């Protein structure tokens, strides 16, 4: 499980190519909360 934490690393990326996409989605949702909060 721990190797899913670093999806940008090449060896992880090769084995689980979708991991980084998921990370992006998660991060982007988290960061969007900052944007939504600031927009209020």
């Amino acid at each position, binding site marked *: 499980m721990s190797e899913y934490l670093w999806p*940008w690393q*090449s060896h992880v*990326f*090769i084995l689980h190519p979708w991991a980084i996409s998921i990370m992006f989605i998660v991060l982007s*949702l988290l*960061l969007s909360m*900052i*944007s939504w909060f600031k927009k209020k």
Partner: protein
Amino acid sequence: MVRVSGYQLFATTVLFQLGTTVIFGFASPAGRDAWIAMLLSAFIGMFMILGYIALMNMMPGLSLVEWFPKQFGPWLGIPIAWFYPLLFIYDAGRGISDLKELVPLTLLPGTPTWVILGSMMLVIMYFLSSGVEVIFRFAGLLFPIIFFLFVAEILLLLGSRNVHFDNLQPLLGEGWGRVWKTVWPFGILQTFGETIEFAMLWSFLRKPGQLAGINIIAVLVTGVTIAVFDMLAIMVLGEGVFQRNIYPLLVLLRQLSISDFLDNLDALGVMYFMTTIFLKISLHLMTAVLAIQKLTSAKSLRLPILIVTVTTLWIGSNMARNVTDHIFVGTRILPYNLWIPLFIVIPAILLMVAWIRKKAGTAL
């Protein structure tokens, strides 16, 4: 207000697009037809960029990350917009990783990696905190120098006795197959898809009407330059070396010898290559920082710059276990997973939505 001249935008775009291809060569899987692949990629890439420009014109004054909230609304648009700075940071990390492999190989075999990369990141931080205008001026300054060096290199190579035109033949002997495999998706996306980053910067242009023209000329210049270098590399090194070597253009430089006096110039070559990578990484990060600033309504850029540079340094350092993995990811996997959705699919949807909206006459 930052005002950028047409020339500066042109210079920055070209140097950005040249980026890492100056060492890695372009489309080497296509073998001796790589230069054809390059020209094709440039041609198709140009239309893609024109697509981005169309989006720009439909939402004048807005930058990339502002497009999505405008068309898709804040709840969907903002998360989608956030993808882009994350991607830019990842791309910057890839650039750092390239450096991590290149510098110990050619310049500093003994030096610890963190010193090499850390010092580079410090300079990049200084660069970013100087503001966008300085970045454009730097490119404007650098462009003639780099091109002068390119021309010198080409002339010297042609003058040496190593150029064999027949290495290029038979043209397309293996058919179009492998050419197309390189053009799509990697060829187009690598250099030209990445240009979508510039959509963060296009609003700084002094005369927005010039946008399309500048980009077309830039793509032309980039395409021809890289194609010429590919051709030269093949002519001098032969198809085999070109395909298999990681840094074919570096090997190319090593062949140069000026009247048996100055040789082994690859160290110098690495220096000017390094400057283009430096600029490309800085541009990745500057656009990321600007995007973050827009998305978080931050007042000063200092904190985003700090966070972004540290993050990039971190992920860049531990990204690749070895160079083969790194390149494999970069050419086979990355384009499919991240680039196609973010450079093609989402912008295409955006374009359609914006166009439909315009036609229907509703404004949001």
